[in-house]
């Protein structure tokens, strides 16, 4: 009798069951796999531009050329005013920040399809994969930020009216919020895209549309003054607030949307929770449908 109970009550290390707990994000396990996370990030950063002549310079070429194009099209041609800030710097700041969000979102939304080979053969906490995307993109963002600062100094000494302010030190926090938002949205999409590939097509042009309503190449105030009827699109868009805030911190222009950021924070938290939830549900059996 005793013996029987011993077997039944044995302390199992872990158990596999068909259904997950409603919400499970095992931080301890993720922490145990931190080396893997680090190595994945290293792999992503190191191997992207292997066997290219320009190598990591590609990290810089893309935002610079986009900024130039934007400046020509939106500022010179369309005549969007960026106030006292040189349009090129305005665009560079916006694009650097937007790029980080966009690459986090598109990268994580592809998690299951891109890692099907590994996921199908070995277990590790699946959330490591989207985390890798977010962190390795952060490295890229860091490099692009350095370039931004170089241009910032250039324009500063040329006499442009740009300054850092006391909020600038909060930039990492804003970027973190952005990363989490991208991660959350990406996980939601990645969970659904495993079964319904339709979303793959949606995300391609969806990102473009999102960019237009996120105030990347115009200040938020512009839409309020020019198209007040459609301002709500931007007002409900958390990405717009993040970009506006980041620009305020980097260039000292525009306004600090306190209410908007609060809204963004709450929304980001909700989206992240939903993302983890869906991701958990999917990770257990996605390999059967991918």
């Amino acid at each position, binding site marked *: 009798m005793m*013996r029987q109970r*011993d*077997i039944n009550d*044995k*302390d*199992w*290390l*872990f*158990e*596999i*069951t*068909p259904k997950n707990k409603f919400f499970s994000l095992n931080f301890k396990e993720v922490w*145990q*796999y931190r*080396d*893997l996370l*680090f*190595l*994945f990030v290293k*792999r992503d950063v*190191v*191997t992207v531009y*292997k*066997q290219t002549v320009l190598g990591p310079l590609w990290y810089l070429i893309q935002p610079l050329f986009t900024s130039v194009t934007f400046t020509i099209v939106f500022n010179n041609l369309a005549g969007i005013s960026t106030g006292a800030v040189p349009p090129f710097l305005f665009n560079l700041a916006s694009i650097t920040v937007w790029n980080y969000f966009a690459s986090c979102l598109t990268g994580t939304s592809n998690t299951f399809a891109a890692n099907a*080979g*590994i*996921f*199908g*053969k*070995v*277990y*590790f906490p699946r959330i490591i994969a989207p985390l890798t995307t977010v962190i390795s993109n952060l490295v890229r963002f860091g490099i692009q930020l350095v370039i931004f600062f170089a241009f910032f100094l250039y324009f500063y000494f040329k006499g442009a009216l740009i300054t850092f302010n006391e909020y600038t030190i909060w930039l990492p926090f804003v970027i973190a919020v952005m990363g989490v938002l991208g991660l959350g949205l990406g996980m939601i999409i990645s969970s659904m895209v495993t*079964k*319904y590939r339709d979303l793959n097509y949606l995300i391609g042009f969806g990102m473009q549309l999102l960019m237009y309503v996120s105030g990347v190449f115009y200040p938020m105030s512009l839409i309020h003054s020019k198209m007040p009827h459609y301002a709500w699109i931007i007002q409900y868009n958390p990405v717009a607030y993040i970009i506006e805030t980041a620009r305020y911190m980097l260039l000292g222009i525009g306004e600090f949307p306190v209410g908007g950021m609060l809204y963004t924070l709450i929304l980001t938290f909700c989206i992240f929770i939903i993302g983890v939830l869906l991701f958990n549900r999917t990770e*257990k*059996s996605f*390999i*059967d*449908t991918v």
Partner: protein
Amino acid sequence: MKDIILKAENISKQYRLGLVGTGTLIHDLNRWWHTIRGKEDPYLKIGEANDRTVKGESDYVWALQDINFEIAKGEVVGIIGKNGAGKSTLLKILSRVTSPTTGSVKFGGRVASLLEVGTGFNGEMTGRENIFLNGAILGMTKKEIASKLDEIIEFSGCERYIDTPVKRYSSGMYVRLAFAVAAFLEPEILIVDEVLAVGDAEFQKKAIGKMQDISKGEGRTVLFVSHNMAAVKSLCTRGIVLEHGKVIFEGGIDEAISEYLNRGCKLNSGKSYNDEDAPASEIVKLLETESIDCKFKNRSDYFINEKVGIKIKFEILIETDDLALGINLYNSEDIHILSSHQKNEKINYTIGIYETIVWFPNNFLAEGYHFCGIAAMSYKGGFRVHFHDIHKFSFNIIDDYAENTTRRNDYKAKIPGVIRPILKWDNISFL
């Protein structure tokens, strides 16, 4: 008392066949509708046993059904079964790649699984970098890998290339390096799929040796899936045989292997046809085939020193003098051992039923299952095959060590080769 380290209870896995499309969404919605009303999943009831050869009624199949087993600490268990028996699905569930539809598995130790060697290898990175990456994917920490790095490199035998990107490696080197990483894993439970069937002979030997060290010397618990019966036999202490997603046998490895071979080969020592399904042309029809011993009695097992006859009963439908029978012989690995045809002498067949026997001499075939393909052909006006009836019956050649008929002397292990004739050995002495 046995110390149970892994316990599987009622695990089942259901798969949906066919394509994912609009129907999937409807099923998903229906399932969701049942769940929110607190009802059971409607599609769990309608699965069928998984037999890929039979066309099924339902879109859902059970790849695994009610699997129960316990594995004690230090055991090396082989999981064997035909293709599609559910071995890989079971391993996927045990290594947490996918989750079961019902049931649960409990683990009493760390698990590492090796369903493939070199998972996550990146061609652009060097051998050394990949050792770290692959090791981390398999669950090792950086520190652990660093402490074993020299051993891993030495075991792989790729020292010279260790700082070269692995895309420049030969496929053999790639596999060696990948296996070397896996060989130095130190989990309490190791799950291994058929990964030993890679690399050259020397490396396979090394790999099996390492596996033996892991299981015997270091007392690790190992679950091993393979089609290589020799490897299973030499490594495992216990066997679990799967068929159509169910456990059909669990016990000692030798019994498990013979159970698997018997089942796997659908041991019919003969085959008779009725009118509809008989292989035939307008000239000739196959009626019956079977294997017989020297007393013309049908049997399924033959000692290696017995001759084996294949009796072919056929019906001639049109008078002909241009017909030859042929036989193809395959072993259990589906290797085509030989092909033989009736000699080119004319036989004048009139309409009626005939029997022909072809003999395989004694001390000629190797041990194991043999499958026959029976054919009839004609040559005039162009070569023509009337029928070729393949893999419908088999016979087994045995050379049991325990029998007094044995030709094994004192050797117990598997003797390789597709045939085992007795050859003449001449001693030439130089005095």
